[in-house]
Structures are given as C-alpha cells and as structure tokens.
C-alpha cells in the first residue's frame, strides 16, 4: 500500500509523458480490439440468426436428388415439415419481341433457385410486391432480383425466357435469409417454383444442380430434440459421404471457420501495430526514467532497494499502460462499429457491433502485456542507477549481469511469440510471425543506424543553413529518432507491402488473359447441340475452339476399399481429402493427351485387356493412388472399374480444358454425357454470343472468364481495403512514436530554439530547420520501409503466388511523400511548445 502511495506521488508532473505513452499503446490496442470485436460480433450474429441463415432447423443437401429414404425419415419425425430447394446457374433472356426482329434479346447468367411451398421456414424474404411467395410463384410466374431487371432492361409483368420456356416476372426479391454475401455470387437471383423448374427441363440436364431439403421442426424444439432428429435422418442416409446434413445449432460451421481464419490473419496485422506501439512504450519509459535519474538516486541514497525502485516504476508503467489500453479498447470498439457500414457487401449478415467485453478485456490484457514486455528493459536499467549519483553526477551505472541481459531479451522474444500465438491461434504461426518481425526489425534498425551514421559523416560545407542543421540534428547521438525511424519504417513496410501484393494479384487477374487462353467456357451442351453451338462460335469469330465430352461419376472405391470407409478415416484429419474423395468427378475420354499434359509415370493406353485411366499428379497424390492401382467409379448407378496406367502433370495456368481424370476411349461410350467447350473471343463479342446461344440453346451456360475474374478482383480489393485499414494503424503507431521521441527532447529543443533565436534566426527559419530534420526522419523511414515492402512483396508474389512481378514507381513515390509529410506534421506538432519559448526564459535556467 505504501508503495502504491509512493508511486502515485512520484507520478506527479509526468502528465505530459502520459499522452504519448498512452497514444502508442492505444493505437495498437484499438486495432486488436477492432478485429476481435468485429469478429465476435459477427460470430454472435451468426449464432443468434442460425435458423434464419439456414431458413430451417436442419437442411439436407446433395449434388443429387435427395433419396426417398431420407425424405421418409424426415416425414417420420413428429410435426416436421419439409420443403424442397434446387439451385443451379443458367443463362436467362428477355422474351424476344414480336416485331419480327431476329436479333436475340439480352441475356444474363443468373442463379436459379426453385423452392417448394413453405420456403423459407425462418427469416425474412423481402419481395415486392410484399406478398407470400406462394401467391407470386406458380408454373408460369417467377420472381427476380432487381439487378436482373436492370441488366435485361425489363420490368415486372414482362416475360423472361428460362431454359427455352417463357415465364412472367411477378415481382422482385431483394433479400433471402439463406443467401449470404452477394459479392460471392455469379449472377442475379431468379426464384421459381419447383413445378416451373420442371417445366424448363434444366434440372435433368448437366451437373450443377444443388438439391436441398429444408426441415422445420415443431415450435419448442430444444437443441437436444434437434440432435435426435438429425441423428434419425442421418441413419437414413445411405451414402453419407455425398450428403451434407446441417443443423441450426451448428450455426454455419463452414462460414464461421472461414471467418475465423480471416480473423486470425487480421489479428496478426493488428498485433503488429500493437508491437510497434511497444517500441514507443520502451522509448517513452526510457525517456521518462532519464528525467527521473536524480530522484531515483535520492531514493536509493535514502535506502530504497534496487528491486523496490523497479517495482515503483513498474507500477507506474502498468498504470499508464492500463489507461492507454482502456482508451484503445474504447476506440477499437468504435472502429468496429463503423466497419460493417464500410464493407457491407463483404459481410454475410447485417452485423450490429455492441460493446464486446471479452474483446475489450483481451485487448487491454494484450496492451498491458506488451507495455510491460517492452518496458522491462528500461525498467531494469532503472535498478542500475548508482546511489552515489547524489554526490557525483557522472557516476557509472551499476553493472548488470550478462545472464540478466540475455534473460530480458529472451523474455521479450517469448512474450512476442506468445501474443502472436494467441492472436493467430497457432504456436507455429506465432513463431513464424515473431521470427519475421525480429528479422525485419533487425534489418531496418541496422540500415537506419548505417544511414544515420553516414549522414553524420556527410560533408556539411554546402547547402543551406537549414539543410545542414537538419542533417546534423538527424545524426546527433541520442536524439531518439532511430527508434522512430524503425517503427515508422515497419508501419510503411506493412502497409505498402500488403498493398503491393494485392495490387499485383488484382493486376494479374485483370491483365489480358494469356494469348492462347480461352475467354469463355460453355457447359451443359447436349451432344446433339454441339454442331449448332460450334457454328455460333465460328460466326462470332471465336478462335481456338475446343470441346470435349464429359461424363459425371462418383468415386466408389479404391483398391476395393469403399470411399465411405476412406472418407470416414480421413474425416478428422483433412477436409480437403474428403472433398477430393466425395466430389462429383468429371471424366472424359481422349485418345491422345493435350500438349500441356506430361506423363510422369506409366504410359497411356498400353493394356489392351483393361479399362485404363490417366490421373493428374496432384490429384493422384490426394486420392492416394499410383500406377497399378484400381479405382471404381459409380456412373449413374453403374460401377465402372478403371486401372491407373499413367500419372501426368497439367499446366493449369493455360486455362485450357483439362481433367484430373482421362479415361481410355471406348470405356464410357454408353454413359450419359454432355459437352463442355472453350473458345477465345474478343470482349465485344462475348455478350452477343451469350445472347444468341441463350436464344437458341437455353440450357447451355456461358461462363465469361473476364466477368468471373472481375468478381474475384472485387472481393480481393475489399479484403485488401480491410488489411490496409488495419495496416494504417501500424503507421499511426510509428507517427505516435516519432511525436513521442520529439516531445521527449522538448527541453533540449527549447534551449536549441532559444539559442537559434538569440543568434538572430526568425521563427520561420527555426521551423524549417526542424521540418528538415523530421522530413529526413520520414524520408529514411519511408525509403527503408518501401524497400522492405518491395522485397517482401516481390518474394510473396514470385514464390508464394508464382506470378510475374511488375514495378509501380508512382505508388512507391506516393508512399514516400506521404511518410515524409506525416512525419513533418507530427514532428512540428510535437515541437509546438519548444517553438514558442522566449529565448531569455530558457537561457536563464542554465543547465
């Protein structure tokens, strides 16, 4: 208690220091709390709205029609109701006019969703007119997204062609409870009845229908009842590896785990700004203690033990850290509240971020931990103040044991790793993060030190007075700017590096496709339609037309072991492998392989008495098969045994038609099939072709690759915005540190200003001397940061994503200038008090 009282007294008069210390921490804590607050709000929203997001209590989904046994099991549940939902993409068009104009109407790739009566069981479907769906939909009426009306130039009441059949648009739909994140869709929605879908005949063709049965249990169903119901349905599923059962109490496990991954990544970016703030804390504590040396010496002379000195200042540091962290936690929550409106398209649900106590406590704890970690070294140095300083000011500090020095560094490293592991949810990622941070900091610090030393040696006989003084100030030993350069440089590195990577990815995706790459994919072409489709392509001026027949099948067994057993075995370990084993497989037949395929093991079609298959190397590894193995496919109920006779590599980047599985010609001749095709087309010809095909072959779906890539770029850029937004906090932390370092030297600067003014400098000249110094700090930090960013981005782009690197000197210049401007503004703001001093007042104080 008495130590607390002492700490409080010793604290007086340090209020100026509090602002910068608190600011350094608050910025980082705000970033951390914003990320975890937003993420937990999102998680809570998803959990709270689980039934609405599923539109049911439970849902059974599959790529094939839901089996009768499963439907019977659902009907066997007391009071249960079910509704059928089918989803598939299809190109739709306006009804051709009856003015004899032969030009086809506009077409658009849309997402059809056929729903039975009763949909949705939960959640709100927003339609206009606002009437029950049953009244809007029937065999001849559909409801569409407003966007579709705009793109086809239609109005409610007009006609729409789907699968060659004509419908009337009965209204618009603007929100569905179980459709999340419109950014991720390929086209506008068309809602229709099951009967209407049957009339189009689309469900019977092709391969991309997703069947779902939504189940509603009686009101008052408990989670336990739900689990019992789910178990009884599950027991009716004959092929569980191909059927998904999802319940409302699981609350979107896939979505939430995806969001969790995003949170862990962003959490690390946020942590970075907190750790940079830690550098500021170390600097602030050091500067603060430097001003307390005399007081510490007196305390020591009066009999205060070294460890008590440590405890005294540790207590004060902790108190300050608590203040800064709480301020940051509040600011972070406010930021989290603002974010949902900024990225509304990306978030799957309407999120209302309230106060997130757990996120706030976590942020405060991290802030406190980081402050103590980084403050530890200067605090330990406070123990070394020799009591004899009361008599002799130049006395050497007490010796520190080498073991303690090593121990302190180890504690710092371990602490950083621990916080990074906590933020990323993995010790390995925590270790990688801290290793990367240590390397980046060491390189930046080393380079900054070199630059500052070289500046000190630069000849100063030329140039203006202000430039020479600015250079001298930068090089002055103990000016405290080195830490600021490192911190600011790390911030610049993070923001510019992340931006460069995202910019390269976007540019690469947007760039003209490779010369020989196709620009359109055509799927679901019936074999007898191919001749007509090919003619349309030729008429449109398409080049490099390529087409193959595709047979859909499911893997049944590998070397006699049923997939169900393989899938169950691997269920816990890797969902990727489960996906590989249970997806709908596309098989094709080819006599010879395309040019970009290279056989790496075995040989093609060499066994006259066996049905052979050639498998792509990565896929074969995922399946766990090699040459000589036997696999069985279930093709529309017929088992087909295939012998693996070769393994080959494929150049996927070519965008040509390629398959994981190529089967020997003749084997699949009797299986039902459809065709897919690729072609290269000028951008201007794509839409007219889609329109013509939609009119002539309504079941054929045209996928325009440029369009798809544009959507991916859009998502990427929104993610990039989020990362840059958080990265900005690291720059902010760097700026706070610079301001702190400048303000720590306020007394010295005041004396300097007084001297300059006494010697006849105008205030404007003094300001420009300081501005030059801060500009140099910004310049060095900016150059080092951007160079680091380029190195990091280049490495990631070339080796991580394996795409070409391209320079963007304009952006780098912008980053550089912005850094310089920010540091001049922050530095001058922090020197404001020193700049206003009267010369006499300062010089009289003496030293």
């Amino acid at each position, binding site marked *: 208690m008495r130590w607390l009282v002492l700490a409080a007294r010793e604290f007086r008069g340090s209020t100026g220091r509090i602002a910068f210390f608190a600011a350094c921490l608050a910025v980082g804590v705000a970033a951390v709390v914003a990320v975890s607050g937003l993420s937990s709000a999102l998680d809570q929203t998803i959990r709270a709205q689980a039934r609405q997001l599923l539109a049911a209590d439970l849902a059974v989904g599959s790529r094939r029609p839901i089996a009768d046994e499963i439907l019977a099991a659902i009907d066997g549940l007391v009071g249960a109701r079910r509704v059928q939902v089918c989803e598939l993409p299809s190109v739709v068009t306006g009804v051709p006019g009856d003015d004899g104009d032969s030009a086809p109407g506009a077409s658009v790739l849309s997402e059809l969703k056929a729903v039975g009566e009763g949909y949705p069981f939960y959640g709100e479907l927003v339609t206009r007119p606002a009437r029950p769906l049953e009244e809007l939909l029937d065999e001849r009426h559909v409801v569409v997204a407003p966007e579709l009306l705009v793109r086809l130039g239609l109005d409610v009441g007009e006609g729409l062609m789907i699968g060659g059949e004509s419908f009337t648009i009965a209204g618009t739909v603007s929100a569905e409870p179980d459709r999340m994140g419109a950014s991720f869709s390929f086209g506008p929605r068309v809602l229709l009845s099951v009967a209407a879908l049957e009339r189009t005949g689309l469900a019977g063709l092709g391969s991309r229908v997703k069947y779902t049965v939504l189940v509603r249990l009686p009101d008052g169903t408990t989670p336990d009842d739900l689990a019992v119901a789910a178990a009884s349905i599950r027991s009716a599923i004959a092929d569980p590896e191909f059927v998904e059962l999802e319940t409302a109490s699981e609350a979107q496990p896939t979505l939430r785990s995806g969001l969790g991954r995003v949170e862990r990544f962003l959490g690390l970016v946020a942590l970075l700004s907190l750790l940079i703030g830690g550098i500021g804390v170390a600097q602030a504590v050091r500067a603060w203690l430097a001003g307390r040396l005399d007081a510490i010496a007196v305390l020591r002379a009066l009999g205060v033990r070294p460890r008590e000195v440590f405890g005294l200042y540790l207590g004060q540091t902790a108190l300050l850290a608590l203040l800064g962290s709480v301020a940051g936690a509040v600011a972070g929550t406010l930021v989290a509240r603002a974010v949902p409106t900024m990225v509304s398209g990306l978030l799957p649900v309407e999120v209302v971020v309230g106060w997130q106590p757990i996120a706030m406590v976590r942020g405060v704890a991290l802030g406190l931990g980081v402050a103590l970690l980084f403050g530890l070294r200067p605090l330990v140095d406070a123990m070394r103040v020799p009591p004899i300083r009361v*008599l002799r000011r130049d006395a050497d500090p*007490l010796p520190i044991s080498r073991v303690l020095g090593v121990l302190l560094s180890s504690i710092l490293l371990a602490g950083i790793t621990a916080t990074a592991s906590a933020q990323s949810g993995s010790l390995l990622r925590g270790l990688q993060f801290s290793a990367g941070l240590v390397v980046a900091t060491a390189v930046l610090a080393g380079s900054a030190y070199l630059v500052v030393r070289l500046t000190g040696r630069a000849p100063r006989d030329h140039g203006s007075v202000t430039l020479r003084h600015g250079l001298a100030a930068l090089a002055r030993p103990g000016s405290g700017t080195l830490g600021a350069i490192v911190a600011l440089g790390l911030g610049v590195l993070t923001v510019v590096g992340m931006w460069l990577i995202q910019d390269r990815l976007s540019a690469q995706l947007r760039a003209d496709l490779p010369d020989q790459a196709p620009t359109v994919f055509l799927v679901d072409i019936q074999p007898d339609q191919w001749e007509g489709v090919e003619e349309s392509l030729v008429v449109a001026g398409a080049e490099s037309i390529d087409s193959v027949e595709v047979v859909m099948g499911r893997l049944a067994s590998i070397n006699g072991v049923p997939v169900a057993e393989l899938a169950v075995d691997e269920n816990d370990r890797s969902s990727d492998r489960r996906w590989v084993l249970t997806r709908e497989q596309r098989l094709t037949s080819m006599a010879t392989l395309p040019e970009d395929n290279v056989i790496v093991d075995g040989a093609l079609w060499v066994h006259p008495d066996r049905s052979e298959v050639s498998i792509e190397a990565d896929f074969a590894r995922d399946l766990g098969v090699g040459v000589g193995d036997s696999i069985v496919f279930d093709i529309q109920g017929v088992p087909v045994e295939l012998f693996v006779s070769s393994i080959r590599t494929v150049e996927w980047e070519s965008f040509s038609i390629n398959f994981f599985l190529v089967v020997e010609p003749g084997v699949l001749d009797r299986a039902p099939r459809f065709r897919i095709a690729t072609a290269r087309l000028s951008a201007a010809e794509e839409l007219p072709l889609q329109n013509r095909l939609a009119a002539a072959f309504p079941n054929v779906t045209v996928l325009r690759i440029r369009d798809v890539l544009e959507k991916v770029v859009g998502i990427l850029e929104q993610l990039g915005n989020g990362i840059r937004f958080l990265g900005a906090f690291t720059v902010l932390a760097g700026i706070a540190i610079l301001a702190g370092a400048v303000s720590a030297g306020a007394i010295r600067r005041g004396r300097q200003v007084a001297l300059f003014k006494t010697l006849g400098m105008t205030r404007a000249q003094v300001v420009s001397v300081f501005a030059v110094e801060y500009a140099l700090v910004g310049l060095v930090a900016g150059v080092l940061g951007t160079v680091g960013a380029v190195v990091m981005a280049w490495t990631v782009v070339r080796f991580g994503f394996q795409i070409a690197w391209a320079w963007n000197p304009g952006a780098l210049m912008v980053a550089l200038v912005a850094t310089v401007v920010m540091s001049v503004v922050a530095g001058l703001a922090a020197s404001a008090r020193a700049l206003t001093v009267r010369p006499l007042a300062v010089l009289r104080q003496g030293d």
Partner: protein
Amino acid sequence: MDETRLLSLEGVGRQLPSGGKMLTILDAIDLEIAEGEFVAVLGPSGSGKSTLLALMAGLDRPSTGTISIKGERIDRLSEDRLALMRRHTIGFVFQSFQLLGNFTARENVMLPMELLGRADARRRADDLLASVGLAERGHHYPTQLSGGEQQRVALARAFAPKPALLLADEPTGNLDGATGRVVLDLLAEMRASEGATLVLVTHDPAVAALADRRIHLRDGRIEHEETN
C-alpha cells in the same frame, strides 16, 4: 572492542579510472568514530572529502580496506543490504538539498519513515517541520521554497528515521552566510535533541569549529586531526 565505536575504517583506499589510468582519490585511511561524536572533515577541493562520505554511507565501495558500522562490515554487502543499512542507520544532508521534486515538503520528510513502515510518519513529519520552523509550509513543493527552506526540509528528512549516523556534505555550501548560519544552528540543535552521530564535510573552518573533532584531508590522506 570499544563499546561506543559506531564507524571504523581500516586501510581504506579508493581509486577511480581517469583518462586511461587509475587516479587515487583516497589512500590508507584509518578512522574510528564513536557514537554521539560530531566529526568535521576538512580539506581543499579534490582532497577526497565527498568520496570519504560516500564510502561511509555505502554509496560507494572502497578499492582496498574495510569499513564497518556497529561492528558489521559494509564494504562487501549487496546493493540490497546496503540500501536496508542506509534506511535503518543513516541520514543525509546534501549541499544541493536533493529533495524529491514531485513530493511536497511533508511527503519528503515522511518518506524515510514510510520506508521503515512507521505508522506515526505524518505526525512526526509535522513535528520535525515545526522544529525547523516550517510548520505552515508542509504542503509546498520544493520549487515553491527558498534554498534555505529547502535545506531545512532536508534536515527534517535526515533526522526523521532517527538515524544513528548523520552524514552532511557541505550543507551550507549553496546558502548565503546568514541562512547558512540558521541551518547550522538547527543542525546542532537537532543533533543534540535526537542524539545522532554527525559527520560533516566542509571547507569552512568556522563551520568545522563546532565539531568535537576535525579531520584534515589532503591528497586523499589524513593530514592531521584535532580534538576540542
């Protein structure tokens, strides 16, 4: 062993590095100080007076020789033990006052007693401030006090924990003659009432004249001693 011996130095020397070689500040000092004694240490600048005081207080360590307080060797104690020894045994008065700027006058006086955990710290601090004539100034910060007033607060602080040994380093050095006189009178008065042993470093013969014994230092050695 002499029952009344408080402090003893045997063969104490102190060297400090200076410009690449070792400079001898003190050499072969043998000195004993009895309980209740008032000893003045005199000598010109650079004779080693302040270093001798620092060694007596355990603020510095001798290069050679031994120093004992109440029969216990202090020259080999850890920093912690030295701090506790000072807390319990030693009071200080410095030339430059050395009050804590963030503490009020009263808090400065209370500090040594609070370190000892004394419950009556505040009452005794008020008594001590009254006895140095600053009863009304307890809530003032050092910067609000004159030099003489600051040194009187420092006196009150030095006597606060009832130290067995009071060490004063040129206590009047930063004060004008009249103010210095007042401080010295108070020092003598309080020593009498609190009963402390006093070692006072000065180069002012008039100040030294008050002492029971005067030790003259020159070039780090005891030149001669005089006793009243």
